[in-house]
């Protein structure tokens, strides 16, 4: 019987490819550098990525849950660790702990319409959901993706978005905050797409990911359309350290964001939206 890996000890993974998505965002594809690997993951879970000599950061898994041996992470370079990560090359080895946390409610979504709302880098943690929805398309009602980004240049996963958009069984609406030149798509915040999206508010599951302010206004807009709060899920990506409910860094009241989240039903975390830092 294989030993259960210690969740505090990183497993070495080798970078296979580095894909530049936008100016500040990149996708790493990794495979295990030894016989040891992390357990399969569910859509919405994250790993702790350890850059040797620099530090460790939580990053959601953006790949396909049906091919867990190929680990995919999409990261925006914002600070010390993520900027060091941006400089890595194929062949480099990093440490991985995970997968951790709760996952998107794909089981609850069965038989219902599914509304996926992503803002900016928030599309990355939702991409595993989209892979699953496409793979098991017949299990769900209408599938709608609403994606907002700052400018056309900031749009992630363009090729995949185009492929999904061309499907007759999926509605994909994209909007940007501002554009110049030849952009022919929508301009305006992502919340504006919600009232015109074709889904049944009374039998849908909404999954929302992006900066907290974007999630908050998306939830308000979903509620305006009649979506019950219990059908709305969000991902709280606040800072964490141990990721296993041990250090208390991410604790708020009885909830640990790292193990009870990052995916929560909105009514469970609504009270956190007025707290600045936890």
């Amino acid at each position: 019987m294989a030993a259960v890996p210690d969740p505090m000890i990183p497993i070495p993974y080798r970078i296979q490819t580095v894909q530049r998505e936008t100016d500040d965002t990149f996708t790493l594809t990794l495979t295990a550098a030894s016989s040891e690997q992390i357990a399969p993951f569910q859509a919405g879970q994250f790993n702790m990525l350890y850059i040797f000599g620099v530090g460790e950061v939580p990053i959601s898994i953006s790949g396909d849950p049906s091919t867990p041996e190929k680990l995919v992470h999409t990261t925006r370079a914002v600070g010390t660790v993520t900027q060091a990560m941006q400089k890595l090359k194929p062949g480099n080895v990093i440490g991985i702990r995970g997968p951790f946390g709760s996952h998107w409610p794909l089981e609850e979504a069965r038989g219902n319409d599914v509304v996926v709302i992503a803002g900016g880098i928030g599309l990355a943690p939702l991409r595993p959901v989209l892979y699953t929805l496409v793979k098991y398309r017949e299990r769900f009602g209408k599938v709608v993706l609403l994606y907002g980004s700052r400018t056309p240049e900031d749009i992630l996963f363009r090729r995949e978005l185009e492929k999904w958009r061309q499907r007759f069984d999926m509605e994909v609406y994209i909007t940007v905050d501002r554009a110049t030149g030849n952009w022919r798509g929508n301009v305006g915040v992502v919340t504006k797409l919600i009232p015109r999206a074709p889904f049944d508010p009374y039998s849908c599951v909404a999954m929302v990911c992006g900066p907290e302010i974007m999630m908050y206004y998306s939830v308000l807009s979903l509620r305006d359309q009649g979506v019950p709060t219990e059908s709305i899920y969000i991902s709280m990506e606040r800072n964490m350290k141990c990721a296993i409910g041990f250090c208390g860094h991410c604790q708020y009241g009885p909830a640990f964001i790292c193990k009870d989240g990052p995916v929560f039903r909105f009514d469970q975390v609504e009270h956190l939206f007025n707290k600045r830092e936890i």
Partner: protein
Amino acid sequence: MENLEKILAQHPFFKDMSPEHVAYLAGCAANARYDPGDFIFRNGQPANQFFLIRYGKVSLEIFVPGKGAVMIETVQEGNVMGWSWLVPPYRWHFDARALELTRAIVMDGECLRKKCAEDPRLGYELMSRIARLIEERLRATQLQLIDIYGKD
């Protein structure tokens, strides 16, 4: 005219408005069509119209020296655009350019103002609907300003 009345009544902007009021306002309405690239109006021109988009997509743009036209919003089927006809000096503050073949109902601003003055109840009803739109636009602008997809 009967036809325009029906189209107005079906547009979300006039949802649940009394048929008498819709019929009365239809006197200010006309059909319009724009090809892709057509400017529907331009910054600085007199603003004397209110547009109900029935089909297509329109980009609202501000010209920024050194950057060119910056798109600040797109409006499409079911949306309305333009309230500069409501307040002096009745001038547009941005450009509106059709991105696709666009069909709209154009309401004459002066005619609307006159009808509102003649029938204050209708005037109040129309202003309430427009105030809601302005509030929605303001909220969207606030979200754009705080950069909701930003890093922090």
